[in-house]
């Protein structure tokens, strides 16, 4: 899991997953 610092009460987490033979860093923003 990768995270970035909480700003404006918003949390941002990410995870890099392999999709077939490409790499997607899926980044999810959610409210704290």
């Amino acid at each position, binding site marked *: *899991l990768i*995270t970035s610092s*909480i700003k404006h009460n918003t*949390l941002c*987490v990410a*995870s890099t*997953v*392999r*999709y077939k033979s490409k790499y997607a860093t899926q980044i999810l923003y959610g409210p704290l």
Partner: protein
Amino acid sequence: GPDETSTIAILPSSLPQIHRANMMQQGSRAAMKITPLNNKKSKTKWHFGIRSRSYPLDVMGEIYIALKNLGAEWAKPSEEDLWTIKVRWRYDTGSLDQQRKIPDLMRMVIQLFQIEPNNYLVDFKFDGWETSNGEEGSSNSSSTEEEMSTFSAYPFLHLTTRLIMELAVNS
């Protein structure tokens, strides 16, 4: 080479600087107050897991309390490794899962690492799915993680978000 007959061009009056000069020239009051959108991107700083400078055992205590508040379960830690928590967490989204026998227990490994004295990192790692009746998710039986290649990270991201919020709110 470029096609000499091309008449494709950029409209000069549409360039922001020229447009602003034209508007100022017309003495528009509102134009004086309106500033251009600042498009300098604040570079997002990413790091693995979440950082902590608290005492290691306190960090572990906080994590167990947060997991308990969120209704997660965990395996009893072994004496040799107090800094790793094997978590199992129900992730059901309505009755849909039961009908379709969708694995609804997500497994996660939470581990505390020391980066340097007084600087620790809590790492979260997805560890496969289980179904409520204890069957292993197919990820462990048929395909190894290597072969599994259509994996949705969103449930994992969602649960870690909730855990991080619980830790942030508690602390």
